[in-house]
């Protein structure tokens, strides 16, 4: 499928009806999803015939794009029932039920001792290495109580996928994430620099939306040195 074709189809994917600010819900655009998945397959061969996981799938944009680029199996995971309801409708609309399934789960919880966020290892560890590729547009961790959630999502993705991880993160966190990736045994490349128009959604906020600089990262496990 050509890029323009994919973007055209994805334009029909329904978005959140009432986005929840606390969950940092905003739709991944068809433009972005098409480019991420098209690149992942045409440049790197990471999608066709592969098992893909979409962490924080929201309304399913990335999952559907993955199915359209030939993934054999896609699992989209999200915490929010409302988003998953829309994702399910999208899956039926696009007739990709044979490839894409959804799961409602929270990847993180508050650590009992510190009160900061940590991965739910009992949930995530059994999924280790079950997928070839992970794709995600995770929450950035800008809302109260969510600090560090972007790193945790990326960490979970690196654990679940045996191959590549495609993820979107604030450019301001790039250096930190490259170091983290290194510590996890991964190479981290910046595939593209983007600008996200994120709606602020606070009633009394002056600006309606804010431009955030975002990196599209591709992580892959380092080859073992002989």
């Amino acid at each position, binding site marked *: 499928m050509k890029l323009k074709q994919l973007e055209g189809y994805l334009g029909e994917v329904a978005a959140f009806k009432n986005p929840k600010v606390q969950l940092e819900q905003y739709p991944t655009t068809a433009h972005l999803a098409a480019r991420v998945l098209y690149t992942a397959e045409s440049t790197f061969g990471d999608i066709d*015939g592969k098992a893909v996981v979409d962490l924080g799938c929201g309304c399913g944009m990335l999952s559907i794009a993955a199915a359209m680029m030939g993934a054999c199996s896609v*699992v989209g995971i999200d915490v929010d029932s409302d988003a998953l309801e829309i994702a*399910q409708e999208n899956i039926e609309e696009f007739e990709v039920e*044979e490839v894409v*399934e959804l799961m*409602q*789960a929270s990847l993180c919880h508050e650590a009992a001792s510190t009160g900061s966020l940590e991965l*739910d290892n009992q949930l995530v560890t059994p999924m280790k290495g079950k997928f070839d590729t992970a794709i995600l547009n995770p929450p950035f961790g800008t809302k109260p109580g969510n600090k560090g959630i972007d790193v945790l999502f990326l960490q979970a993705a690196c654990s679940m996928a045996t191959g590549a991880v495609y993820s979107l993160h604030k450019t301001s966190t790039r250096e930190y994430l490259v170091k983290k990736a290194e510590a996890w045994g991964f190479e981290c490349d910046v595939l593209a620099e983007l600008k996200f128009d994120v709606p602020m959604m606070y009633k009394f906020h002056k600006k309606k939306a804010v431009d955030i600089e975002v990196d599209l990262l591709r992580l892959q496990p380092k080859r073992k040195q002989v």
Partner: protein
Amino acid sequence: MRLITHNMLKCHVKNCDNPDKQFPLRFKGAELEQVEAERNDEFLVRMIPRLDWRALLVTTKELGIELPENIPEEPENDDAFLQALHTAILETHVKEGSMVCNGCSHEYKITKGIPNMLLAEHEI
């Protein structure tokens, strides 16, 4: 939810840690739907080592789905095996019902094919 995914779900309630009991999750009132999917043998063969075969056998028996006891020496050359595997893990969808932990009895509901793995405050 397909069985390929059920095969990676363990009970994650706080303090539930008996490996024999918390996995696989036992289906209760499962409503199944067979959805035909294109078969990709390379994909199937690559997935085999990632499956917990013992658990898959327990689950397929529970649901009345055919699955050979043993993985053949050369699965890539065994059409009957690959077809059975394909049907079991990729074409069998659980639409409604719940998954029960044999250890702590927690029930994870499945609604419209979506399993709910969320826990209450005290279970985290």
